[in-house]
């Protein structure tokens, strides 16, 4: 029992049946396909992917909210479908970017009630609530009605709710979504500290933010269109690109023209284009440093003015581009 992985999935899949309002026919949408993941106890594991990648779908299945349509999943050693009653006491979850809770209850009452649902004795619950509120810097709000909290503070209260029950596995769906920079930093520090304190604790979080995945997580699975494309430590993921040369070039405003030509140059692995207000940025992944000369020549030939150039270390963003062919922002742009 104690040897079981925190999370284990086998060919896990989920298909949604959606009704097309116009055509009146049923369509199938594959939100998750053949996911095979194993997260060990003590890990802080990240799921990184663009909108619609299937991150929330996976979390819903693992937290017993949603039935999979293929494969199976185990959390803390128990099957999420057949043994849901054994999974639930051992897990907890928090979704970011939404304000939940009973506005008419105080922060303490909201949290205490949920502790009661988990059968935690009142005294112990109150003690933990006090400690956790202290850590997220909300001690002064203990007796505030939760309807009087700002969105950010409500989210922090919700995060406390997720950790208060001392779960074996915590699922966090975009925990810092909608929080300001300072609060996000506090929350990330808190998550890291919580996992480190006790090696039996496990966190699975989803995120849009490359930096969050890179700096916070022990291992990251990159997911796009329902498919897990890669799963490793951030360092190992980036190492795949270590041999490549990554250059960032700032230019005048481009109108998209010429980028295809640059992309087609021999030795250019990928080009990501970002438009800014005054200048545009092109990010090149090149097979070798030497290819840069050809790129600059090609730019000159097309009269693209080079304003700034630097070489940098690969990031998870580059890993995503390498796997998918486009940046996360571009993938999300396409979906709209």
């Amino acid at each position: 029992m104690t040897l079981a992985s925190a999370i284990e999935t086998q060919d896990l899949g989920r298909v949604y049946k959606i009704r097309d309002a116009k055509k009146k026919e049923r369509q199938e949408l594959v939100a998750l396909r053949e996911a095979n993941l194993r997260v060990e106890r003590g890990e802080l594991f990240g799921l990184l992917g663009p909108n619609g990648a299937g991150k929330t779908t996976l979390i819903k299945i693992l937290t017993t909210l949603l039935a999979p349509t293929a494969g199976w999943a185990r959390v803390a050693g128990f099957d999420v479908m057949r043994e849901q009653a054994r999974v639930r006491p051992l897990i907890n979850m928090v979704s970011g970017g939404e304000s939940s809770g009973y506005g008419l209850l105080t922060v303490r009452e909201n949290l205490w009630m949920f502790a009661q649902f988990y059968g935690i004795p009142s005294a112990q619950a109150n003690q933990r609530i006090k400690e956790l509120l202290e850590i997220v810097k909300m001690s002064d709000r203990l007796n505030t009605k939760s309807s009087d909290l700002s969105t950010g503070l409500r989210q922090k209260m919700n995060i406390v709710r997720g950790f208060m029950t001392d779960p074996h596995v915590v699922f966090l769906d975009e925990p810092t979504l909608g929080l300001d920079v300072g609060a996000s930093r506090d929350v990330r520090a808190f998550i890291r500290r919580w996992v480190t304190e006790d090696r039996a604790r496990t966190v699975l979080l989803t995120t849009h933010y490359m930096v969050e995945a890179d700096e916070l997580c022990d291992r990251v699975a990159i997911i796009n269109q329902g498919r897990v494309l890669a799963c490793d430590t951030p360092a190992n993921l980036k190492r795949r690109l270590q041999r490549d040369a990554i250059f960032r070039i700032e230019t005048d405003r481009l109108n998209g023209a010429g980028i295809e030509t640059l992309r087609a140059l021999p030795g250019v692995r990928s080009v990501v284009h970002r438009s800014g207000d005054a200048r545009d940025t092109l990010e090149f992944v090149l097979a070798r440093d030497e290819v840069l000369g050809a790129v600059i020549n090609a730019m000159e030939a097309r009269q693209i003015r080079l304003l700034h150039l630097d070489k940098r270390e690969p990031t998870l963003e580059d890993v995503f581009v390498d796997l998918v062919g486009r940046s996360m922002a571009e993938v999300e742009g396409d979906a709209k």
Partner: protein
Amino acid sequence: MVNLKSEILNLKSLRSFRMATWLGWQIESNWTDPFLFAVYSIVKPLASALILVVMYGVITSGDFNAPLFSFIFIGNAFYQYVGAVMTGVSWSVIDDREHYRTLKYIYTAPVDYMAYLIGRGIARVLTGSFSVFITISAGVLFLQVPVQLGAIDAPLFLAALAIGIVMLAMMGLVLAGIILLIAHHAGYLGDATAGALYLFSGAIFPLDVLPEFLRPIGYLMPITYWLELLRRSLVGSVAQAFPTLAPFSNAQLLAILIGLTLLFGALSFFAFRWCDRRARERGLIDMVTNH
């Protein structure tokens, strides 16, 4: 002993039920506006009773001493529990899912969700009882409804009331299950069902007034026996002026009520479980419709 007590209180179903009634009561009693409370708990029930009284008065040319009047008045007063409890149970699904956005957190907690919903419904009994009490008191004071404190069969009254509330909560579960599966607001379902059953459960007229082919519905409804028991416990002989259920003794009626409650309870249990499973398959547990 103390240990055993805390052990029992900590059983999943019991603690779910306990916390849900606590939460339900917090929500119920959160009348930030006493005026609103007065309207809902006093004016509304009295107004609806008044409509009935006026209609009765017109039809019978003011024969308020006939046993039929007590029959109608008491039946109507207690029928308020039907809407209150069934809506209380089923409305909680919408409330938690759409309004408070807590349903997914409750659902994924080690909570017995059925016990939780029943608890939320039972919380309405307190405010509901207030309305019923006001209505009955008004009837006794102003309309000579012959309830005499000394003549009340208290044990029968309390037993019937308690069983009836459990029965109503179980029936509410079916609605809660349906709401779990419906993608839009359906809070009216509780009141709509209560309204539909109003005619078939002997609330305002004896069953034999119904056309013959509709009577079996009334005989099948536990609400019918429940209301009859409440009438008998409060006004004794008056209720027996009608032939429908007169052949049955109190004990027999109680047995029928318990039997039907168990039957409907079991059916509701399985119906809810089925809806719950479907909802999880279709991903509806944490659905938000943005109303």
